[in-house]
């Protein structure tokens, strides 16, 4: 294929062929296996995928059919995506930790005949719901363990399928020619993948993306962040999430960078450090978790180290961001920062695996200003972007040097954004989806007559910076009974910045005052309990401990003070709060797989608690059903205490920078 033909590659299989020619000896994929990093170059990757595609075709996978991909970020699962796309089939990644019920829904809705899964756990899960997925014929698995004695009439090892294909390619040259024809026959306008949204609002929908649009979108961002074949990223985000498919898969194929797969999900932190990626994406929650861990470890450090850490973090707060933004900083400041970098920031970034990061993004939820500032102040070029699955990710992003904690950046090149009259953000973008799979009604619902897509988010363009600001989900912004504006996310995020608080659900819309339900962060609070000799037997007991309540009451009081500082939010101070007896869990449907709170569902589930928050009772009883990881159910009951808070008088402060 001539280079100019390669430039026109409008499907991922064609891009893969191009990469094998242009970046042949560059690493395409790494995976830590048996403790050693294994590497596949683009040329080797293409070989495997070709063999795999032939094998899949022999098993009966045809153009236009769907194939489910279930599992963690592993090379063979990425290859399953590539190989099926090579045949013109449509991969449908599913969240690996989805319970059997969710899995059955997606598999059945997507009409899959094939499923490529990671291991025995997933095979078992699918087999347990087989009668609900009547069209499923064949399963392929990556990890052999435990599957030896299974009935293999409808079950194949990926290795065997690849071997089979490899033999066919070696023994019969016409097979290779045929496959070249298949690759050439893939069309940019055909569906490339179906990504099921995590379903913040009800059942998940299958977002259909085409190859040409996906590649266009990814080309824009690759150019924006100047990604090249010398970059490396660690694929640790769920395979089924648009973020992984975009940031690692699509950008990797477009730019030719290397995607490294962690050994398993629990080793991602250590693997991050070993790989030292240059492109990094983390949702605010992960950044929060990292910071919490650092802070906890610092609490346990010796006095000298602790003092040094806190002193230089102070220095970083003062100068770090300004240095990163290229603003003027005094020589003394620069010297202190340099020393801090030597003693604290450098080693800290090294421990976190962020030393080599050139471009880092966060998105998915609003990030606390302090959290955001922390990472930027230690010299990590962390930026925000805004996007969604329907847009194939990017709508806005912050250019280098234009970073604000409360904006999501400028409209991306080739993207068109409009704000509707009700404040909802509408868009047209290069990567725009082709529709929801088998759901024209829903597709029509989110489209405006003139072809814009409704995001469901409320926002506005900041006059000073020209950046987009997202306030909340359009339907979530509410008002108290006295007409005060009630932005729940805003309040929740302020509380969530405290390491002791893991999750918050705020109520106030059409109520007399604001009340919140809190989830403690077990890591942080249990460490605190250990240091303070607080004895507890379970999560529930710790969450209900009076001393824990005292500690969190202080946090709530501080948030009230900061709410009082702004005239707009002063009326939305928290009057009452409680600490939930159990952690909000995606298995119970309380938060999505991408860890977003499902407000409406929680409202129903914890109705007695919410009632108690507003009727003045001092405590309330609650019992909730919980789902264990294997799908079994149990009941947790508790008596939850409610605390009253004093509210602050309105005290507007002047000229405080965000």
């Amino acid at each position: 294929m001539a280079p100019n033909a390669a430039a026109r590659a409008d499907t991922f299989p064609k891009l893969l062929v191009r990469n094998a020619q242009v970046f042949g000896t560059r690493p395409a994929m790494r995976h830590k296996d048996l403790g050693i990093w294994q590497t596949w170059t683009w040329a080797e990757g293409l070989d495997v995928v070709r063999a795999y595609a032939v094998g899949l075709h022999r098993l009966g996978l045809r153009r236009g059919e769907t194939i489910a991909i279930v599992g963690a970020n592993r090379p063979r699962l990425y290859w399953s995506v590539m190989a099926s796309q090579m045949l013109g089939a449509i991969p449908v990644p599913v969240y690996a930790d989805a319970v059997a019920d969710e899995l059955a829904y997606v598999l059945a809705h997507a009409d899959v005949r094939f499923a490529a899964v990671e291991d025995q756990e997933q095979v078992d899960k699918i087999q347990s719901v087989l009668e609900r997925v009547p069209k499923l014929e064949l399963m392929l698995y990556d990890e052999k363990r435990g599957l030896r004695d299974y009935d293999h009439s409808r079950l194949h090892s990926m290795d065997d399928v690849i071997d089979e294909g490899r033999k066919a390619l070696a023994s019969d040259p016409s097979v290779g020619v045929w496959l070249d024809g298949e690759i050439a026959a893939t069309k940019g306008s055909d569906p490339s993948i179906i990504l099921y949204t995590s379903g913040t609002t009800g059942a998940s929908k299958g977002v259909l993306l085409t190859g040409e649009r996906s590649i266009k979108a990814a080309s824009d961002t690759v150019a924006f962040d100047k990604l090249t074949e010398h970059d490396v990223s660690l694929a640790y985000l769920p395979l089924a999430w648009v973020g992984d498919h975009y940031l690692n898969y699509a950008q990797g194929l477009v730019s030719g960078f290397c995607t490294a797969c962690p050994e398993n999900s629990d080793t991602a932190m250590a693997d991050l450090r070993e790989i030292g990626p240059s492109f990094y994406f983390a949702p605010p929650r992960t950044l929060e978790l990292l910071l919490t861990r650092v802070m906890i470890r610092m609490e346990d450090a010796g006095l000298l180290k602790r003092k040094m850490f806190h002193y230089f973090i102070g220095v970083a707060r003062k100068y770090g961001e300004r240095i990163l933004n290229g603003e003027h900083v005094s020589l003394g400041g620069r010297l202190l920062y340099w020393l801090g970098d030597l003693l604290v920031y450098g080693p800290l970034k090294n421990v976190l695996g962020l030393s080599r990061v050139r471009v880092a993004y966060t998105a998915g939820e609003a990030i606390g200003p302090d959290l955001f500032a922390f990472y930027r102040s230690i010299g990590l070029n962390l930026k925000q972007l805004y996007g969604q699955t329907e847009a194939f990710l990017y709508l806005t992003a912050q250019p280098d040097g234009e970073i604000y904690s409360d904006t999501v950046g400028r409209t991306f090149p080739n993207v068109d954004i409009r704000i509707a009259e009700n404040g909802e953000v509408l868009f047209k973008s290069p990567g725009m989806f082709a529709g929801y799979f088998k759901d024209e009604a829903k597709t029509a619902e989110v489209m405006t007559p003139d072809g814009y897509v409704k995001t469901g988010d409320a926002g506005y363009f900041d006059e000073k910076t020209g950046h987009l600001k997202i306030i909340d989900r359009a339907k979530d912004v509410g008002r108290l009974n006295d007409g005060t504006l009630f932005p729940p996310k805003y309040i929740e995020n302020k509380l969530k910045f405290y390491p002791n608080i893991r999750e918050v659900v705020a109520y106030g819309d059409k109520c007399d005052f604001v009340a919140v339900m809190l989830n403690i962060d077990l890591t942080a609070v249990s460490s605190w309990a250990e240091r303070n000799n607080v004895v507890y037997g379970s999560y529930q007991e710790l969450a209900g401990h009076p001393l824990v309540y005292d500690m969190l009451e202080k946090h709530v009081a501080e948030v009230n003070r900061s709410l009082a500082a702004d005239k707009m939010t002063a009326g939305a101070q928290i009057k009452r709060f409680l600490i939930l007896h159990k952690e909000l869990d995606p298995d119970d449907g309380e938060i999505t797989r991408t860890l977003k709170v499902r407000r409406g569902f929680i409202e129903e589930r914890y109705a007695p608690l919410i009632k108690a928050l507003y009727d003045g009772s001092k405590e309330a009883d609650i019992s909730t059903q919980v789902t264990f990881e294997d799908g079994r159910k149990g009941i947790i009951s508790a008596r939850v205490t409610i605390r009253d808070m004093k509210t602050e008088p309105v005290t507007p402060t002047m000229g405080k920078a965000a």
Partner: protein
Amino acid sequence: MRAPGGPDVAVGDVLLAVENVSLSFGGVKAVSDVSFDIRKGEIRAIIGPNGAGKTSMLNVINGFYHPQQGRITFKGEARARMRPHEAASGGIARTFQNVALFRGMTALDNIMAGRTLRMHSNFFWQLLRYGPAMREEVEHRRRVEEIIDFLKIQEIRRVPVGRLPYGLQKRVELGRALAMEPELLLLDEPMAGMNLEEKEDMSRFVLDANDHYGTTIALIEHDMGVVMDLSDRVVVLDHGIKIADGTPAEVKGNQAVIDAYLGVAH
């Protein structure tokens, strides 16, 4: 994967036979006149109420205790007395009721320690960590990494086991025993003190070890559900006497067993 010493035993044949074994400490009879066998490739459970003599039985099998009467035949060789190190080099590995690991060492090093008996290069080379010793270490490390992968403990590879939660320590201990590539693996209450999820994980590892490595397993366990699900055959002890022996279903229906567990009026 054959342990050195002794002839091979085919799957399904008797690997170890306990014949009329009695053991007492002073006046206390821990085990009296117990006979049963363990067949190659099976999972054999030893159950019984507290103080039934289960752990004593296990200690007799791996040579830690010497029975006053009776004999033990392992791979066709009868022995009245066997020392633990002989048992180990003969292919018998075990885990303990209260985890017995090197607490200051990492999980990796602990499992590597299980390979000690299989290291052959001489002291001199090992000291230099060069030549044959290096090659050997690489090979052993590969085996250990397979076990780490098998038990899904990659994330704790470099963590000193003293810092690990109990459930993971149990898993490391199982790893160390598996690293010996034993023909017979003795597990003393592998699920004790675990929650439901940890038990399920551990059960899967026991089943997989049996399936994947073909290891014959004898285990002591209190959780009846676990025993019934895991084992091929069960022997029941009560006050040092064997009261039942058979498949889980047979044992479950046995009146003597029900009496021993629920208690009867004497």
